[in-house]
């Protein structure tokens, strides 16, 4: 659609036309703000907790557990130096042997969700799949935050029309 629009504008005399090829989905998947009716409605990216502890693959479980507890968390996300999500540690993984490397203890390659997903959809999915928490990432895999099912359900109750019509 956009390439045809660009061609049409060029035929109308515009000499400097660019096409943002990845489009609105890419913008929203990056967690960037939008304008419009849905802009103020809660989505996965706005509800996800940004203060979730992060760790590297070479950290030790005991150290990460101590840091997480000090921050009142029972979860942590393993990321690379660019904050790309590599694994997830929920309470069960954080309870493993203190000397174990995160790489051995974590759940590798967890399912992730994009920031623009409506919160009602997230709440329904997480409830249906018994997910207590899920990382929210940009389209290039960078951590936005950790979405807790309890937060998603609570927000969805306050926004019953936050459904797929948003995207």
């Amino acid at each position, binding site marked *: *659609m956009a390439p045809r*629009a660009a*061609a049409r504008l060029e035929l*109308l005399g515009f000499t400097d*036309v*660019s096409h943002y090829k990845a489009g*609105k989905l890419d913008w929203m998947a990056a967690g960037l703000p*939008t*304008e*419009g009716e849905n802009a103020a409605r809660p989505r996965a990216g706005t509800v996800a907790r940004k203060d979730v502890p992060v760790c590297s693959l070479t950290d030790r479980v005991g150290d990460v557990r101590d840091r997480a507890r000090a921050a009142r968390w029972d979860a942590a996300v393993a990321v690379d130096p660019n904050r790309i999500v590599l694994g997830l540690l929920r309470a069960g993984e954080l309870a493993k042997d203190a000397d174990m490397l995160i790489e051995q203890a974590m759940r590798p390659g967890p399912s992730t969700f994009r920031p623009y997903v409506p919160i009602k959809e997230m709440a329904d999915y997480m409830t249906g799949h018994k997910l207590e928490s899920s990382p929210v990432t940009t389209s290039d895999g960078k951590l936005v935050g950790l979405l807790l099912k309890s937060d998603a359900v609570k927000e969805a109750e306050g926004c019953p029309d936050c459904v797929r019509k948003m995207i």
Partner: protein
Amino acid sequence: MANLIDRGQLQDLVARGAQLVEVLSAKEYEEDHLPGARSIPLPDINRESAASLDPHRPVIVYCWDSA
């Protein structure tokens, strides 16, 4: 032929005065659009609607994805 740009290039161009145009339907625009974008749905692009754009400034068009 239009220049293909990515998100970072879009942000640079907009900061330098480029005009953003969403070419999806008006309804889709009303629900969500990029900050500062205006709506000119593809079927409505003609001399009249294009007159709302400054021909001396860059124009960036977008839809949902690469389609």
